[in-house]
């Protein structure tokens, strides 16, 4: 979408990355022979995310997929989450999630440079800070991921 045609200059939230991933997610689907699976749903808007994954011997995410039915924010958040957590173990994922949620809550300005580096692609959601009611769209995939990582499949 050319800049001149953008509905507003604050278009950063829906930058190409988010819209692109929402339209054609890279990590859509389910992992065959998954050793973990979890779901998250937001009854208020009907968004739904299912995550399945397989871990390696060290407990690091070796393969991860999501089936997401929801708004662009939700689907893109699930896809970028999947990309970002590949290769990480539960502890690292937990830290990443906290950092992500802190960025949504407090905004990019309140996020440290090293923190921003760690968040990588997830920085695409920084402006969600301004859209409080949409934040849960971006965190829903993480609830599903937590459930997938938990022994009993519940967050």
């Amino acid at each position, binding site marked *: *979408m050319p800049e001149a*045609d*953008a*509905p*507003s200059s*604050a*278009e950063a*939230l*829906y930058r190409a990355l988010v*819209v692109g991933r929402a*339209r054609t997610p890279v990590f859509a689907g389910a992992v065959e022979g998954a050793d973990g699976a979890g779901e998250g749903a937001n009854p*208020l*808007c*009907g968004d739904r995310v299912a995550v399945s994954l397989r871990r390696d011997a060290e407990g690091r995410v070796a393969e991860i997929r999501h089936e997401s039915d*929801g*708004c*662009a*924010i939700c689907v893109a958040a699930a896809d970028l989450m999947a990309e970002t957590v590949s290769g990480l173990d539960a502890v690292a994922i937990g830290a990443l999630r906290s950092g992500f949620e802190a960025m949504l809550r407090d905004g990019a300005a309140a996020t440290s440079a090293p923190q921003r580096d760690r968040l990588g692609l997830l920085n695409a959601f920084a402006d969600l800070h*301004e*859209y409080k009611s*949409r934040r849960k*769209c971006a965190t829903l995939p993480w609830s599903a991921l937590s459930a997938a990582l938990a022994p009993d499949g519940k967050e």
Partner: protein
Amino acid sequence: MNAVLPVGPDLSALRADFPILGETVRGKKLVFLDSAASAQKPVQVIDAMSDAMRRQYANVHRGLHWMSERTSDVYEGVRDKVAAFLGAGAREEIVFTANSTAAINLVAHSFGSLLKPDQAVLISEMEHHANIIPWQLLRDRTGIALRVARVTDRGELDLDSLRAELADGKVGLVSVTHMSNVLGTVTPAAEIARMAHEAGARVMFDGSQAAVHQPVDVQALDADFYVFTGHKLYGPTGIGVLWARRELLEAMPPFLGGGDMIGTVRFEGSTWAEVPHKFEAGTPAILETIGLGAAIDYVQRIGMETIQAHERALTAHALQRLRAIEGLRVVGEAPERGGVISFALAGAHAHDIATLLDQNGIAVRAGTHCAEPLMRRLGLTSTARASFALYTTSEEVDVLADTLDRVRRFLA
């Protein structure tokens, strides 16, 4: 691109009465198209409430002193205004409640307690949750049946289905919306009332939307109950209205208990005040009633016919503009409709639309609009909804359409 404007009365000068319309949101001029959720307030309402608090306020009814007497006079005067606004037969038929929801719950509890377990309440697929849940709770309490009349694919109340549900004469009350808050559909209330009465049922209309967008005459409709809510009629929150035929109010047991609704109180048993006070327990929403009175004065001065004509022209214009947008589908095609339009955009989630519009200062609602069963019936999980008020302009409709078109291209 600009469509030909259907000509309606020019109410744009009235915008000056609504200070909030001059606000800026996310750096853009506010375009408020969420009035069906709650309308903005004119200075006349704001000032009426402020002035009461600044100059003439006390609790009402039992006070013998000047402030209380005068406040009571103003408070009770609003009952007359509401009665005139609805074409009620008597001021005693007006019961003040907290909102439409409280009014419907009152009827569900009080009139509902008079229904026999083998009777039924008949609603429709088009109802707001406020006109669904109270009846489910009544069903679960007393064992009456809850029946549901269908909605056609065009988004109209299916009168054949209504007739079929009424056929066995077991329906004690028909309770349906007078105007859908999702589709804008205006239901044929007089005809529904006739059908209900022929089947021996009473009829209630949820006028939460209708009373805002068109003149209402409960006697001409031959209704038994009618409810609306102040905050959608340019009034404050915290105040709603139940109109009911006097003989029904008199036959109904009280709902909430407390001060002001009693005759005499003894622990063994108490007696109740005359209607409508029997149904108004506790300190009423005095300031909000005063605000509602100012709101009714305001719309009456403009004229509900004028407001209706304005919104009709606006809606026609909006339908024309929106339908021209590629991939946009207007949900609901009833010819009889008010200024509420739901739509879906191919490939775009309603929430994303709402957020992208919001970035441009345009407030619309997105979601299920407290009408999940209707969404399910229409095979939708959510829609975006633009809704109009007396202060909405065709320029605002154009901004909506232009921005939507860009949003579509952006998300596509």
